[in-house]
């Protein structure tokens, strides 16, 4: 096993949502180039000293398709590899003895529950619910979005515009008429404004998005917003 290495993993430990968190460093041995970030956490939990609580983190299919997992690896949501979920990120980029910092997905919309586990469902779901009914979920599925929340976490503005924009790109064709489209897109934009920050078109979101959603989706928010404004003006 000449390929195994030891990494110093700095993990965010936070016992509950109310507590202050802090980084704790652990040495993790037996890491191979093929180890994924989640497997690294598994190794860490196996090697924890007696009496220490295992590190809690969001886990899912480990196939990169469910969108449940997600941590920040050295400041990047999911990890250094582009457009790859945390469970599919291999640690081959890290050399023996290097330090890796793992923290929860950071955003005001994603409160930390414990250690690396965050509640991202609530805020993402409020936006989808604003599109009412299964149409919102259908739109996200059509866009290819797996609702992992990495775009929000990596954004220096805490903006969810890639998520919201992708929803609004795919929502209009699912609407039965124009009134429904206006009503629902308006609600989505309003809810998103209350939940996420403003978009500065930096494009960090498209670097981490596992679905590889394009930058063009961002602009759907403004398009639908202006469209709704025009209608309002005609009515008066």
């Amino acid at each position, binding site marked *: 096993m000449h390929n195994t290495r030891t990494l110093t993993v700095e993990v965010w430990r936070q016992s509950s949502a109310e507590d202050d968190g802090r980084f704790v*460093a652990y040495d993790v041995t037996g890491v191979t180039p093929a180890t994924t970030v989640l497997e690294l956490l598994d190794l860490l939990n196996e090697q924890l000293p007696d009496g220490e609580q295992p590190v809690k983190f969001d886990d899912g299919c480990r196939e990169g398709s469910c969108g449940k997992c997600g941590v920040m690896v050295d400041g990047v949501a999911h990890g*250094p590899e582009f457009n790859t979920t945390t469970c599919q990120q291999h640690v081959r980029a890290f050399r023996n003895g290097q330090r890796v910092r793992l923290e929860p997905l950071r955003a005001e919309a994603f409160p930390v529950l414990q250690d690396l586990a965050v509640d991202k469902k609530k805020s993402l779901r409020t936006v989808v619910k604003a599109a009412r009914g299964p149409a919102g979920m259908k739109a996200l599925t059509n866009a290819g979005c797996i609702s992992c929340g990495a775009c929000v976490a990596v954004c220096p503005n805490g903006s969810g515009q890639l998520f919201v924009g992708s929803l609004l790109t795919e929502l209009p064709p699912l609407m039965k008429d124009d009134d429904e489209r206006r009503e629902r897109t308006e609600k989505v*934009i309003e809810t998103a404004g209350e939940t996420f920050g403003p978009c500065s*078109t930096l494009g960090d979101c498209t670097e981490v998005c596992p679905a590889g959603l394009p930058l063009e989706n961002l*602009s759907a928010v403004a398009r639908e917003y202006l469209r709704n404004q025009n209608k309002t003006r005609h009515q008066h």
Partner: protein
Amino acid sequence: MTISDSPGAPARPDSSTTSRGTVPATLDSALRAADRLRARAWETVASTSVDAMVKATEKMPPTPQLKLAMAASGTLFSGFTVVHMLGNLQVYQGREAFDGYARFLRTVGSPVLPEKTLLWAFRVTMLAATATHVTCAAALTVRAQQAASRPRGQKRLRPRGRRRRPWDVAKRSMRSTGVVLGLFTAHHIADLTVGARPAAAEHVQGAAYDNLVRSLRRPAVAALYLAAMTALAAHTAQGLTQVGNDTGLSTDRAVREKLELAGRLAGTGVALANASIPLAVQLRIVR
């Protein structure tokens, strides 16, 4: 197995042994108490002012409207920089042509309108656009920082595995380049429009060409001008990209890419053309 516990904020060095050398125990504890008081005061100020700012921005229009206002005022500014550059370049046609153009700007519209009427209308428009642009930027900044808030004492890490090219750095520098441009414009007006010292060199009303040459002869002013042009190129490039995004034009990939290219070309074009003037003055090509 546990190597070290690194708490969220780095611990303050023990003041009696490291930062202040050896000091009497009473003085030391007094200093520590003062440190604690100061830290608490700062925390209070920071948290209350953040709360106040967040409250203030809640009353502002929704984000898409602020973005549209920024796009409109920003487009106006970009258009102005192009026209202004074309005016500037007349410096190469000599003193007479340049002063004539300056006179034209003051008298345009007369004799139908009183002299300087259009000039003042334009100035008021630009002032209103500036107020809009700055207010919206401030509100959006507060909203962004609120949405991306992190636990106290936890800075954003420089992201691993991301190389940033100059244009990517420019993208992230809208606030700083904006501040540079604002300060430069204030200096520029005090220098060449008002002629107020110490911003201005020897200033004669109406002698635009001589005022410009005398001003840019000063190396510090020429350097400031060049720095401001770098900021202009960066700000315009990302600005136009954002105009496309915030008006819904960029839902089309081709449009988005064209706008990005147009922003870079316009930004660097205007900046280079303008920057040639202080260089020409410094090299005594324009004298």
